[in-house]
């Protein structure tokens, strides 16, 4: 049945894009594209928050954020010049790879206000974000236990009570 179906021109026209979609790494949205990690990024940025994948924000956002680290969402996250330059360069070369990141700018350069992020979390009630174990939409690991490994698969979501 399947083989007969897939042999028709119409079916082939439908199945080929589907197959490509399933195989394409960019469409497997639950797992971030792997980039060569930068130890300084982990060390300097992940003390306060998850080492957010550079692909989650467009290059222009990273550039603005790295240019005003002393006023970083209400805290001083300033670095020495050499470390700042190194992390900024790495972010630029890996920015905006997540699907739809480059379609629209991120409001306030926040991942959590990006249209794709808001859409993906639209079923999460406002009350859930306020729970002590969640506290902030930037606290990915609260509900995505494997977020540190870049795994946001919805089957592994555990929303704390």
């Amino acid at each position, binding site marked *: 049945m399947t083989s007969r179906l897939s042999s028709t021109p119409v079916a082939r026209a439908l199945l080929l894009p589907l197959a490509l979609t399933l195989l394409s790494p960019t469409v497997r949205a639950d797992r971030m594209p792997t980039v060569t990690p930068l130890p300084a990024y982990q060390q300097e940025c992940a*003390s*306060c*928050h*998850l080492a957010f994948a550079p692909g989650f924000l467009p290059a222009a956002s990273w550039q603005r954020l790295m240019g005003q680290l*002393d006023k970083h*969402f*209400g*805290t*001083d*996250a*300033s*670095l*020495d010049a050499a470390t700042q330059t190194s992390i900024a360069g790495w972010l630029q070369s890996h920015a905006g790879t997540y699907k739809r990141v480059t379609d629209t700018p991120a409001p306030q350069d926040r991942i959590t206000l990006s249209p794709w992020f808001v859409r993906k979390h639209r079923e999460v009630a406002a009350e859930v974000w306020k729970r002590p*174990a*969640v*506290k*902030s939409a*930037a*606290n990915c*690991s*609260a509900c995505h236990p494997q977020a540190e490994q870049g795994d946001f698969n919805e089957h592994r979501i555990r929303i704390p009570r």
Partner: protein
Amino acid sequence: MPLPPSILFRSASLSLALCLGLGAAGPARAATPADLLAGYTAQSGAPAAPERGRAFFTARHGKEWSCSSCHGTPPTQPGKHAATGKPIAALAPSVTADRFTDAAKAEKWFRRNCNDVLGRECSAAEKADLLAWLLSLKP
């Protein structure tokens, strides 16, 4: 069964490297919290007062956060970032062994966090008081 010579050789090389400290990837100039305290005390020119350090740590200084907003009280317990909720290892060196063992790292965090809590840099005396108090805390 005797080990192949190649394994013995590698094992001997590794032991040698460890003896020479080549295996350690830590900070270039390892220090102890006591070294840092001595440095801050010398800079301030007065003896450190642990009780002043405790009060400094727990009080707000005209801004939204105190030190304890993120580091918790007492800081022998893990803290939690006041904005993001990310867990922070306990600040007390008796609990988290690598606390205050790298002068540059300690200075970086004092610079940032004092700016968040006080809107200015901390003085050497304030750092000395705080560290003296932290060193008095037992797990």
